């Protein structure tokens, strides 16, 4: 034991464990489990592994209800990342993860290391990372600190991905007051692998050597995992934020992929949250083995580090590797080629103990089962919040003086506005497989050497989940699937990042478990199991919780790149159709919409969401996907934030073409126009049909029984014109719409 560390007795008598986030009951449980009082190092090890971040103690009972199986699933939750079959012996590996708390303190490094961590989760499986996505939430841009957090997070995400050479191909950014104190940075990585190359985090085979590879270990990030599990990050220490080195990670990635390809690796795991502690305990736990590690052998970049510090450091760009006995030299050679260290620090045992040695002998000795399997699982109480029962019916009627002006205002709302300012900072094209870059409904990256491609998306709408947790959760999945479908892809599977407030609050836990229920239902309907994910709780500051914000990362497969469809209008005179029920869209009203947030912010949280029917949604998506595969569709775009007019405007802006839309034969009055134009009823897709295929399209769409409506035609004249029997309702030049849409974020940031 290091001289200045508290004694075993002090840990107990001075309740030092409380500083690490352990409760009195948890401390007592530890004593019971190991049959003695833990020393300082052991207490530290328990505290990080039993933290919310590592143990999922609050969320585990809820996560167990997700559908995780399917014929396509090769690896579900529980490993570093999930894996899905894409045929021909290949597979796609993906996962999303949060880095919210570090970002609130140090946005550049917080966001950058979030990207670095999720990339490691992918190449740890033996997969070549091929794409990055993200999902971001910040407070409104009229606040200087929000601009700082947003700008630096984006730069950090770009800085990491650009340097390592993995294209950042998609994502979403939402701005709302609820995220001012607790910004969200969720990063997703997608990799490709030959099914024979899959590596896992198993520490098996007695005597096999355990190696630390990659960067040296320093004092950064100690107790990062504990800190991510505490409320109000602002009161926490900046020193718990790690610093990223993407160049080091690039070397580590190449070296690890080369090493895994030799077939001599028994197990490999990223040292992410809780560093050496969690990686070693988890690898031993999966294999039912034990590990003995001599921390004095761990390469360090600072002098005088104690066993406690080495075990808890979250220094980035490190991995724990178990090699076949006698094959260590292969690792030494490969890592030397890449200029990195690979050091044997111990070996696998069969006694089920995690044993840590330092200069003084045994610094810690804990049964792996006590650390991992016996980690507390809490069945947290929940209570339906009162506000849910006070919501008013969604309003249909809204007084709008000038629809054109309202559309311009909505397009310049940062949440809806073009995110080019963001994605122009991301190298989206490196690897030269990005066939649909950022800015469309979903990104598409090719599968090298095949006709196939992957469609990728992240989606979430916290406000909608707040207004109706179950339906909002299901709608997030539906929107992600819809975004893949309009791109021409069949949805395959989900990774989810569940961002919520303080789970100790009854209403927050209700939001969590109920929205997870909605996600589960939708995943069953879309046959997209949850194969990986991450939970981020305690996104709370000064008593205010974020909106419940589950973010759905979804991956879809295009069997043929010829099916790739984008949202921009392609040719004048092509007819435009709405797939989905227009009347339901009108009846759905303005509840939960960006329109209300933009024009009546005090009423944004007063109303119920429009209705949502999962079966209807699935039917429309299936019809749309087949219409694309049959070659009828020139462009497709889902109707979401901002409603129908925003969707049409985005298609127009992207294509540089206009449209004449005629809404006759509908009972359209002043009272319903606002909800028709700006309501956010789900299950609607705008499609541009090839002119010469309109008849075939109609014949087929009628066969499927899909509600549809001809809206008008694309025009060469770049003007968006909407008329009814009563005359022109809206006429706006596409240039002027484009200026409103493109200028909004740069106007705040430049």
């Amino acid at each position, binding site marked *: 034991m290091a001289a200045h560390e508290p004694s075993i007795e002090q840990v107990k008598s001075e309740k030092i464990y409380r500083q690490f986030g352990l409760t009195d009951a948890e401390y007592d449980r530890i004593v019971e489990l190991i049959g003695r009082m833990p020393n300082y190092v052991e207490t530290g090890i328990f505290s990080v592994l039993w933290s919310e971040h590592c143990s999922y103690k609050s969320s585990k009972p809820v996560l167990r209800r997700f559908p995780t199986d399917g014929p396509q699933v090769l690896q579900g939750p529980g490993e570093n990342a999930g894996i899905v079959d894409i045929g021909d012996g290949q597979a796609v590996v993906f996962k999303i993860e949060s880095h919210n708390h570090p970002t609130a303190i140090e946005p550049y490094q917080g966001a950058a290391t979030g990207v670095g961590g999720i990339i490691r989760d992918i190449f740890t499986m033996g997969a070549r990372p091929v794409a990055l996505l993200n999902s971001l939430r910040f407070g409104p841009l009229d606040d200087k600190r929000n601009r700082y957090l947003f700008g630096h997070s984006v730069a950090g995400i770009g800085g990491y991905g*650009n340097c390592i*050479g993995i294209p950042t191909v998609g994502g979403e950014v939402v701005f709302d007051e609820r995220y001012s104190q607790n910004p969200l940075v969720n990063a997703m990585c997608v990799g490709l692998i030959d099914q024979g190359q899959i590596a896992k985090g198993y520490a098996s085979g007695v005597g096999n050597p355990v190696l630390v590879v990659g960067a040296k270990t320093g004092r950064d990030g100690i107790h990062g995992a504990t800190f991510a599990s505490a409320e109000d990050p602002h009161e926490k220490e900046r020193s718990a934020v790690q610093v990223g080195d*993407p*160049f080091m990670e690039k*070397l580590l990635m190449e070296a690890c992929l080369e090493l895994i390809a030799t077939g001599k690796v028994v197990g490999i795991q990223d040292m992410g949250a809780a560093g050496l502690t969690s990686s070693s305990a988890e690898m031993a736990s999966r294999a039912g083995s034990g590990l003995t590690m001599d921390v004095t052998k761990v390469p360090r970049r600072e002098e005088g580090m104690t066993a406690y510090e080495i075990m808890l450091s979250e220094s980035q760009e490190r991995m724990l590797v178990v090699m076949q006995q006698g094959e260590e030299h292969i690792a030494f050679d490969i890592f030397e080629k890449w200029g990195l260290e690979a050091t044997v620090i111990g070996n696998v045992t069969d006694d089920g103990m995690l044993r840590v040695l330092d200069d003084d002998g045994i610094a810690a000795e804990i049964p792996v089962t006590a650390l991992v399997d016996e980690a507390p699982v809490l069945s947290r109480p929940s209570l339906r919040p009162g506000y849910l029962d006070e919501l008013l019916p969604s309003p249909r009627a809204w007084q709008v003086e000038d629809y054109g002006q309202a559309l311009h205002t909505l397009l310049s709302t940062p949440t809806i506005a073009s995110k080019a300012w963001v994605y122009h900072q991301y190298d989206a*094209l*490196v690897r030269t497989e990005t066939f649909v870059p950022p800015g469309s409904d979903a990104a598409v990256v090719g599968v090298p050497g095949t006709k196939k491609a992957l469609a990728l998306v992240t989606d979430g709408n916290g406000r909608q989940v707040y207004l109706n947790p179950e339906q909002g959760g299901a709608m997030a999945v539906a929107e992600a699937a819809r975004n893949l479908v309009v791109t021409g892809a069949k949805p395959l599977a989900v990774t989810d990042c569940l961002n919520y407030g303080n789970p100790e609050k009854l209403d927050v836990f209700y939001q969590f478990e109920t929205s997870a229920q909605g996600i589960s239902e939708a995943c069953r309907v879309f046959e997209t199991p949850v194969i990986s994910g991450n939970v981020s709780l305690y996104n709370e500051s000064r008593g205010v919780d974020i909106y419940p914000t589950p973010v759905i990362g979804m991956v879809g497969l295009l069997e043929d790149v010829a099916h790739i469809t984008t949202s921009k209008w392609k040719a004048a005179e092509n007819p435009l159709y709405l797939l989905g029920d227009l009347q339901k869209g009108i009846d759905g009203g303005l509840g939960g919409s960006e329109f209300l947030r933009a024009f009546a912010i005090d009423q944004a949280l007063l109303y119920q969401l429009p209705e949502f029917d999962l079966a209807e949604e699935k039917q429309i998506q299936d019809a749309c996907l087949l219409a694309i595969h049959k070659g009828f569709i020139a462009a497709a775009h889902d109707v979401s934030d901002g409603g129908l007019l925003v969707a049409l405007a985005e298609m127009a802006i992207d294509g540089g073409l206009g449209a004449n839309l005629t809404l006759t034969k509908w009972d359209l009055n002043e009272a319903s126009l606002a909800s028709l134009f700006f309501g956010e009823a789900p299950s609607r897709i705008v499609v541009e049909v090839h002119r010469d295929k309109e008849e075939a399209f109609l014949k087929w769409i009628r066969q499927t029984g899909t509600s549809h409506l001809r809206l008008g035609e694309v025009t060469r004249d770049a003007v968006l014109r909407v008329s009814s029997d009563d005359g022109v309702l809206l006429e706006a030049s596409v240039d002027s719409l484009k200026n409103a849409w493109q200028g909004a974020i740069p106007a705040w940031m430049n």
Partner: protein
Amino acid sequence: MKTAVIQFPGSNCDEDAVKAVVATTGEAADLVWYTEEKLDDYDLVIVPGGFSYGDYLRAGAIARFSPVMKAVQDHARKGKYVLGICNGFQILTEAGLLPGALRHNESLMFQSMTLGLVVENAATKFTHHYDSGETIRIPIAHGEGNYFADEATLRSLEANDQIVFRYANGENPNGSVADIAGIINDKGNVLGMMPHPERAVSELLGSTDGKRLFTSILTSWRDAHGRA
């Protein structure tokens, strides 16, 4: 024609360059590790994009001291072709194979987008399949692409037609002096450019305008060497 694509530890457009050469010319291209000291077997050397050594100091500042760069210097001295793309252009200026320097983008932000380039000189061995004055669309992706050279150097670049590509009117993404996007050395065998022609070689990638750069090099080489 045999092509070497230099691979520094932090190169990340190396494989893209190999793919593009093979796809556009049908000729072989090898990845060559940065510790290599000889490039005698190769006709074209591509110094690709990426972050050669992390580039925390200044893009290309460390790469120029690597063993392979001495071989690249010899290769250029012999009049063989050298193409530097993005980080490769930065390295070639650091190594003194091309004049001037690349500074941080004026916006101080990394910029990645597809934009218009005007082919200023279509009479080079790298560009003769283009038309002079033609505007092509090629992606850029860089944080340090802001080309700078002093007045005298600029005058000589202009006078010798060494400015090969300029950003199209109003599309300069980084503040480069005289909108310079790519230059060639006075001997006409070393081209450096910030845009990525290897990212514009198929309809699926959104542009095929980069193809003619590679086919220009191939036919130049064949004109000089026959079809071997």
